[in-house]
Every structure is written in structure tokens, then in C-alpha cells.
């Protein structure tokens, strides 16, 4: 490896990276992109992204028009997970190349704060895809709704709260569970509820650093 050769990146990546420079947005204008990925399995080293779904939150409302839903064509196929996400290897849904999906995703999350339920996994999956494209990792600030839930309570526990559990606890009707978009939407509703709880707990307007 040549340590002195400064690596150059494609334009779309540069634009993405640029979007974080000198940004210190107030909370009202911060764009939260809530996302979820469906994958062939749970091993980031082997498994691949099958779909990405997002919704955005701005000014504490979900903006349906600003969302992304894409399905990725993958050679690797795991029949076992089909019963979870229902995405067939061929199937009738229009699929795109992984690099195409990542480009769309990067464009979509420019300057945004990323939100997901147990975000570490989803981010790892995206980073693996970036690595395959020879690109650096994601730069966004990250919010995990699993952790956010714990912040709204005084207890610090290590329990793992599943999306299903939280939707049940917070009385959110579950539709389209285990589709990336559906889960992203449910996560977004949870996020709004948690933000409201957090605000109540802090008894003041929230700041970005609270998340």
C-alpha cells in the first residue's frame, strides 16, 4: 500500500463527505433519516444487503415524500431469511446493483443524522458495502432508538429491546414488519415518541446532543 498516494474518491462520495463540513445545525432544521436494511443474514462478513428503506424526520414530523426504498440485486442468496423479509432472489420487485443503491443512499443521507433500531448492525452492513466499493465508512452522526429508549428512562440496563417489543409497549400498530421501509417507518414513529418522552424528562427543548 502506498501511504503517500492520497486516494481520490468519486464525485458522489465527495459530495456526501462535503455535506458534513462546517455543519452545526440547530435541531429544528436537522434532517433525521430513519433507516433499516434487510439482509441475507446477520453476519456482516458474509451477508449482503437486500433492501434499504428510509423515512425522514424534520421538525419532528415524518416526511413521506422524502424517503427512499430500494431493493438490491445480490448473487449471494440465503433461503433461510426469505421467510423473514420475503424478498425472493428473482421476484417481481425491481432491483438495482448494490453500488447504485449505495450511491442513492449516500445522496439521500447527505448532512443528515442517521437513526435506526440497533443501528450498529445496519451501519456495519452499509460500511461493508462501501468497503467493497473501496470507499471509507459512513460519516453521519448516529442515533440508536434502542439506546434512545433507555435514555428516556432513568434505568441503565443492558436489555435488548426488539422493535416488536417496543411497538407493543408503545401501542404502535405494526404493518409491513420486516420490510426495510416498514421497519424504518415504525422506528421513526418510535423515535418521535421517544423524543417526546425525552423532552418531558429533561423538561426543556431538546438539543441535538441529547440524542
Amino acid at each position, binding site marked *: 500500500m502506498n501511504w503517500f498516494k492520497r486516494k481520490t474518491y468519486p464525485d458522489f462520495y465527495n459530495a456526501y463527505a462535503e455535506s458534513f463540513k462546517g455543519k452545526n445545525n440547530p435541531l429544528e432544521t436537522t434532517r433525521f433519516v430513519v433507516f433499516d436494511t434487510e439482509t441475507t443474514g446477520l453476519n456482516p462478513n458474509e451477508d449482503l444487503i437486500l433492501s434499504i*428503506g428510509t*423515512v425522514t424526520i424534520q421538525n*419532528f*414530523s*415524518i*416526511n*413521506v*415524500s422524502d*424517503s427512499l*426504498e*430500494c*431493493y438490491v440485486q445480490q448473487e449471494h442468496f440465503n433461503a433461510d431469511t426469505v421467510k423473514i423479509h420475503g424478498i425472493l432472489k428473482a421476484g417481481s*420487485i*425491481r432491483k438495482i446493483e448494490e453500488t447504485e443503491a449505495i450511491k442513492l443512499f449516500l445522496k439521500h443521507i447527505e448532512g443528515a443524522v442517521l437513526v435506526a433500531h440497533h443501528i450498529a448492525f445496519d451501519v456495519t452492513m452499509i460500511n461493508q458495502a462501501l468497503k467493497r466499493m473501496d470507499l471509507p465508512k459512513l460519516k453521519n452522526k448516529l442515533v440508536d432508538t434502542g439506546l434512545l429508549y433507555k435514555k428516556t428512562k432513568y434505568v441503565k440496563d443492558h436489555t435488548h429491546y426488539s422493535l416488536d417489543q417496543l411497538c407493543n409497549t408503545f401501542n404502535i*400498530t405494526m*404493518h*409491513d414488519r420486516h*420490510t426495510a*421501509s*416498514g421497519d*424504518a*417507518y415504525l422506528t*421513526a*414513529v418510535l423515535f*418521535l*415518541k421517544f423524543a*417526546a418522552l425525552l423532552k418531558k424528562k429533561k423538561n426543556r427543548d431538546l438539543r441535538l446532543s441529547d440524542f
Partner: protein
Amino acid sequence: MKNTIAERILDFLKGFPPFDALTHEQLFNIATQVKVHYIEKDNYIFKQNEDLHDSFYVVKDGAIGIYRGNSLVDECDEGDIFGLRALIRKDQYLLDAKAIEESIVYSMSSKVLEDIIITNPKANQFLIASFATNTRNPYSEEDKGTLFANESFLQPNTNSFTEVQSANFSKNPIVCQAHTIIKEACLVMSARKVGSIIITENKQPIGIITDKDLRNKIATGLHTISEEVESIMSAPVITFPPTITVAEAQIAMLKNEISHLCITTDGTPNSELIGILSEHDIIVMHGNNPSVLIKEIKRATSAESLKFIREKAQELLKNYIEQHIPISFIANIISAINDAITKRIILLSITEIQEEPPVTFAWLAIGSQGRKEQLLLTDQDNALVFEDVSEDKKEATTSYFLKLAKGINNKLNTVGFELCPANMMASNPKWCLSVTEWKAQFKNWITHPDQDKIMLCNIFFDYDLVYGNHDLVNEMSTSIFEAIDSYEIFLNFMGRDALKNPAPLSFFRNFLVEDSGEHKDQFDIKARAIMPLVDAARLLVLSHNTKDVNSTIERFKKLAEIEPQTKDLYESCISAFRILLRFRTQQGLKNNDSGRFIDLNSLSKADRLKLKGCFKPIKDIQDLLKVRFKLSQLL
């Protein structure tokens, strides 16, 4: 590209007006532009005098209260729209919108609204209606009945109601071409025994020849029978759409000095001819009105001819329902016809026995017939009370009246009132008693109530004198109130019974449907919505010692008078009851049954919402009963 979230939003919206009127594509477009808001309980969406948000709102989950100051003007839940008026007026908000429980609310921009208004007349109509109504709350006096079927816009007037019926025109008009020879046209008219023939071109009416033209133009020698019809036809013709009412037809005939109107698909001469309406048709229709029917009933000499008259009444009922004549007015007319039929049958039955009744008696309609709330032909419920006689004449008297009652029940059956499967009929020795026996029976029911006796009270306390001695009935009523006075806890038992069917909304605001049996998944409008109101009205009226008010609507009106502080609730019960009764009648006419079980899937969402709107008063009146009769510890 697939859009799961927009699809989900579309699925929700498409169930509610005005969105149900939009095309899938329009709706999908709207769904992709929705913003989703989470509103905590007691948080505001907008406040009075706040500047306009550039959007209106639809409740997805939860409930939003619309407040004027501190008073709740309207409560919006699932599928309800709010924030629309300010947006249409392009003005500040006049009211507050605050979450009553935690809610998820969709917002849509004014752009979306404009698109709906411009592109879809049906949706447009709904928006204008809700704009014009201010709110949908059946509780607030000023808005009553606005989005609900216009129950009170027609003043009941026995002389004029035929006029608003739609006119029955002849559906297969006799037609010919412009170049048809007059003689040929006349041969067709003679063969078909009609007084007019319409000249058409491309199925559109261009002229008409009537008997009068033949008299004035042929018989006078002005034209010969070998000319073409075109030379003598009257043109242009006067056209109307098929929705024409009797009144419109009469006015048009008078104004144009003509005796025939052409009915075309869109009401203009430029659309297809589908019928013809003659003066004669109008005269025949005037013959089909209640006063004529009642005259016919009085002249009838057999149950069979009464059956025929009752069938005509059924036709009337259908017309009234279609024409949105106020339901209480319809109920009065149908009851009057039923009463007249029953009276006639009683007289015929006495004649048949060839022996006058030994003492005076009274024939009572009970249950829904007694309340004058029975619009459809259902099974009969009746009872007979006769004057007390000395012990030695008792047996003979009883057997006379049982025989009479049997004759009456059978004839009513011939007319179309099925025999009561539970045998709640005067021919049953249990319900054919002397006044003293009735009084003892009522006293026993009231002072030793159990489940069955309460049920009997519910049926028999709604009696209505159809024929006979009024004093006997008065005596019975007085004894009921005396017995209740002496044993007041009876009312609590009745109250408990009145709550046996809870208000028909489940926790998630869905309809409660039958979960088993023949009517699985259907909505039992009688047991779940109508009876709770009927039972509540009866109980409350009894508790006020109010005699002789038998119909549920009259009872609630009376209650509103006695308790002005609860007037709003009683009035909303009246409007709910009217809607429910109309609904049931419509369903019954449509499906040719009692209308009791409704397949919710067959209803439009607007109708479903309308039905749901009736449930709040049911819940509220049940809550009132709970408190007033201290039922929480009994339940």
C-alpha cells in the same frame, strides 16, 4: 419505485371520505406527500388565532379534540379531517386542536387540497359539505343533521308528500322515425294501446304525436294519414332526467300545456330516450297515497284484499326512503296503515264469529309495533285485554276472546305479518286476559323481577291501543306505575337489562360484529344499536312516571323537556335513532328481510362513518343510566 409507506397510507386513506372518491393514482400521489405527526396527549396541533399552517389534517390513530375556548366542539378520530375550514378560508384558526389522547396525525398540503377540489367533484362535494357544516358533532345544536341524512328539511304535510316522490314513468316508450307514415304510427299506437308515440333520431327524442294531434290535425282534414309523422309531430319535446319528481312533472306539464314528458338519461333532448311520463301516470300515482290506501282498507272485505293494499304500502315505504322523507313521518304513516288494517281485520273477525263481544275489550300492539317503529313487515306482537266479568261468565268470555284473537292473528298472517315465533300474540291464553289479570301479572313482573320477566316488561310496556276501550288501557298503565312506585328497585333491574348490549364500538373503535353463528361477522343493528336506545328511553320515561308516550323518539323528546340539563344528549339520541331506523329499513328493503343484520363490507365508508356517529350517544346514554340507577355495583 416501490413505496411501502405510501401504499400503507393509501390503504388507510382510501377508506374515508373524501379520499374514497379519488382514483388509486390520485390517492397514491397524495399518500407520497403526507407528513406524519406524533402528538402527545394534551399537546396542540394549532391554537386559536394562530397563523394558518399550509396543511389540513387527518387523524390516523388516537383522537383530536376541537375546542372553542375550553369547550369541546368536536372530537375527531380515525379518518376524520380537521383544520380544513381555515385552509379553505385562507385565514387564521378560529378554534384550538388538541390531542385528547396520544395521536398520530397525517397532514396534507393545501396543494393536495386544491388538486382534490379541482379533479374530483364527489370529493369536492364532501369537502364543501364539511366546510359548510363547521363541525360534525351531532351534539351541537347548530350543526345538527347537516352531514347526517337531512332528517328535518322536509316539513311533514300529508297533502304534499306525494309530490316529492319520484315519478313512475313508463320504461318502454313506443317510438317511430321521422319518416314513418302517420297511418303506420297510428296502427302501432292502437296495437300497443297507447295515447302517444315518440319520434326519435339516434335514440334521441325529437318530437311526439299524441291522440290530441290526431284529433286536431288529422280528423280536421288539415293533414292526411299518408303523410310522414314529421309533418304533424309536436317538437321539440320537453325532457327530464329519470329522477324527476311528481311535483316537477306537474309543474312542467302545466307550464308547457302538455300531457307527456320524455325521460332521457341526462335530462336533455341530446341523450337517449328511456321513458315517457304521461298525465295519466301522475293521476295514478296520486291514487297511491296513504289517505287513498286507508279508504281502500276501510272498504276491504277480506284479508286477501288487505294483503294487496299492504303491498302497495310497501311500495310507498320504498319511495319515501329513497326520497329521504323524515323517518318519523314515514313511521307514522306506515303505523297508521298497519293500524287501519288491524282495525279492519278485527271488525271482519267479529263479523265472522257472528256474535258480538260479550264485554268491551282492547286490542294492543306491543313491542316495536306498539312503539310505532316497525316499518318493515315483521312478525306480529299483540295482546288483548277485556273488561272484568263475574266468575261464572269468566270461562265463556275468555274462550270468546281467544277465538276472536285467533281469527285476527290468522288474518294478519294472511296480510303478511308472520305469526310470532315466540307466540307473543293475543291468541296465546297468556296474553289474552281480563284487566284484573293483566294488573296482577304486571305487579308480579315488577315486584319479582327476573331475567324473563324483565324481557316481558320490555315488550309489554310498549303497548299501543289499536282498537277498543281506552279506559282498560289507562287502568293497566296506572297499575304499572303504582307497582313501580311500591318497588323502585325494579327500575335498577330494568337498567341492568338495558345495559346488556354495550355500545357497539370495540376498544379500537371498530364495529363489534357477531363472532359466531349464522350471522358471523355481521353487525346486529337491532340488538347493538337500536335496542339500547329503545330500552334507555323506556326506562327513563318510566322513572319519570310519564304515561302514554310510546315511541322512542317521542320519549326522548319528552325527556328533553323534563330534563333540560340533559337535553343535548337526548337530542343526539333522537338523531342517532332516526339514522339507525332509516338504516335498518333501507337494509331490509334492499335485502328483503328484517334488516337486522348488516354486512359491514356492503356499506360505503361514508355510511359506516355515519353509523359510527350514532354510537357515541348510545355510549353516553348508557353511562347516564349507570350513574342514575347506580348500576356499577349491580353489574
